[in-house]
């Protein structure tokens, strides 16, 4: 029975095949060539579209990868910038400066009131920080202070006599502003400076810190010039070639000197009735200590400096020369002028030898004594013993220095001084300096000679 059923099925299938084969050519002939080509085009177009889609997908995947990488980089940059901003905010503020301790022993030509011509003691303790704040690449605010320990003073009368005396008693501390100025770097050639500025009359006022000067005290004649003034200044440098040679300039307007009593007299009296010089070269800012506006002259003073720096053999072989000056009225009425001119020069011959100096000349007209003409000259030389190549640890760290200076205040007092000394470099910024000075003057208060020792630190 089973066999019969299979045989019938096989027969039906075979018949179907025969029919299929018989009718197949008739069915194919029903699709036209045009339909076939249309269908073929459609398939091809679909294939192209598919390929384009694949390419687009690849592009998008690539772009996505790039974007992810960019995002990662941006994240890293932002993180670095935020870290840097925090660091810069802390490090834009920097403090530099110097500190000194001095010991002095003086010998007067004539005995003092106690019959003892010798005096010695620790002369001063000074801390002079400079605060720098850089707002950005072009703006810097800088302020220098001088914090100094001073002797206090007590007055009294001797027992059993009516002789008065003064006596050093205790100590006090003075704080003064050396300069406080805003620097704006306008471009590569012009910098604007405004505020209470160090004045470029010669070079000493801008290079006078204890560890720069190489002498425990300053040269004579600088008291004939204002060290700083309130005003504005333009300064800059123009390089010449690629050797480091350059021309430098500075022009400024600043409140000039003033008159202690307002008049144009050469002398006036202080609160104790002592005769003092009437010309006051100190800072004159117009605003009084009680907040009122004081006399500010008829116009500020004007001044400037031109300098020429000439290196000729690379490092440590150079000459710098400069000419500077300032002029303006000094009495309240604005009828009398004060004028100063300074020539300066500095020479380096090799790493061991240095010679520098200034010639200071000033004039001012007065009501009572006519034209007064203070002037001074100083020259200072130094030689580092390392230049001898002795290979001795202490000797090679010593620089020998010598100085000659002379001044005449134009009102009858003159001083001439010879100085020899040394600098022992404990480190590059810690200096132990000493000098011995011989002085000649017609002023009895000027010592005949003195020894000054100084420990100076620049930071």
């Amino acid at each position, binding site marked *: 029975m089973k066999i019969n059923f299979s045989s019938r099925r096989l027969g039906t299938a075979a018949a179907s095949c025969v029919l299929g084969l018989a009718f197949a050519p008739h069915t194919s002939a029903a699709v036209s060539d045009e339909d076939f080509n249309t269908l073929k085009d459609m398939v091809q177009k679909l294939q192209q579209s598919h390929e384009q889609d694949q390419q687009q997908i690849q592009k998008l995947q690539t772009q996505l990868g790039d974007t992810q990488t960019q995002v990662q980089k941006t994240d890293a940059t932002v993180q670095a910038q935020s870290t840097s901003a925090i660091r810069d905010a802390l490090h834009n503020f920097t403090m530099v400066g110097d500190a000194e301790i001095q010991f002095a022993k003086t010998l007067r030509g004539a005995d003092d009131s106690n019959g003892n011509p010798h005096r010695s003691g620790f002369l001063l303790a000074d801390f002079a920080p400079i605060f720098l704040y850089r707002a950005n690449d072009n703006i810097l605010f800088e302020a220098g202070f001088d914090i100094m320990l001073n002797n206090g003073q007590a007055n009294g009368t001797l027992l059993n006599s009516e002789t008065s005396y003064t006596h050093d008693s205790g100590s006090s501390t003075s704080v003064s502003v050396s300069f406080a100025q805003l620097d704006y770097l306008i471009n590569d050639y012009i910098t604007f400076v405004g505020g209470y500025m160090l004045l470029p009359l010669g070079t000493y006022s801008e290079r006078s810190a204890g560890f720069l000067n190489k002498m425990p005290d300053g040269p004579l004649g600088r008291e004939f010039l204002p060290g700083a003034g309130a005003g504005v200044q333009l300064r800059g440098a123009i390089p010449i070639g690629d050797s480091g040679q350059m021309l430098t300039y500075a022009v400024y307007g600043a409140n000039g000197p003033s008159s202690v009593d307002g008049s144009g007299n050469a002398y006036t009296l202080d609160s104790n009735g002592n005769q003092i010089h009437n010309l006051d070269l100190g800072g004159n800012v117009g605003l009084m200590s009680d907040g009122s506006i004081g006399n500010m002259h008829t116009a500020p003073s004007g001044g400037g400096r031109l300098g020429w720096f000439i290196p000729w053999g690379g490092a440590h072989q*150079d000459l*710098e020369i400069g000419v500077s000056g300032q002029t303006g009225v000094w009495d309240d009425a604005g009828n009398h002028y004060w004028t100063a001119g300074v020539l300066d020069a500095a020479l380096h011959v090799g790493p061991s030898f240095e010679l520098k100096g200034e010639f200071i000349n000033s004039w001012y007209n007065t009501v009572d004594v006519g034209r007064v003409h203070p002037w001074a000259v100083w020259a200072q030389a130094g030689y580092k013993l390392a230049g001898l190549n002795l290979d001795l640890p202490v000797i090679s760290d010593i620089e020998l220095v010598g100085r000659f200076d002379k001044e005449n205040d134009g009102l009858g007092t003159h001083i001439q001084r010879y100085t020899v000394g040394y600098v022992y470099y404990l480190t590059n910024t810690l200096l132990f300096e000493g000098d011995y000075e011989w002085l000649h003057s017609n002023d009895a208060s000027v010592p005949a000679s003195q020894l000054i020792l100084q420990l100076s630190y620049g930071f």
Partner: protein
Amino acid sequence: MTNMKTSRFFRTSFTRATARFALAVILAGGFAATLAAADPTAATDKTGPVKKKLTGAELYVIHCNRCHQERYPTEFNSAQWQTLMTHMRVRANLPAKQAKEVLKYMKEEAGK
């Protein structure tokens, strides 16, 4: 009359002092030129000196050492050197490009 004498005295003293200062500068210049001529490091070959642009390190020695002892780059960090060089560019009146070269050198060698 006294004023005239005083004035003459000042003029004479002024002239003498000026002459002495000028003489000192001239003598120093001559001394420097002599030493420079005797300096073996300054010798050049027959073709003359080879001019090259100074590096930041060379400019640092030229400009900084003429006023103070060498300050080591590691004494301050990079940001501090930028502030200090802005200060020194103004104080020492340094040309901008040379100051930037010096700053670049100091930053490369700066402490962390």
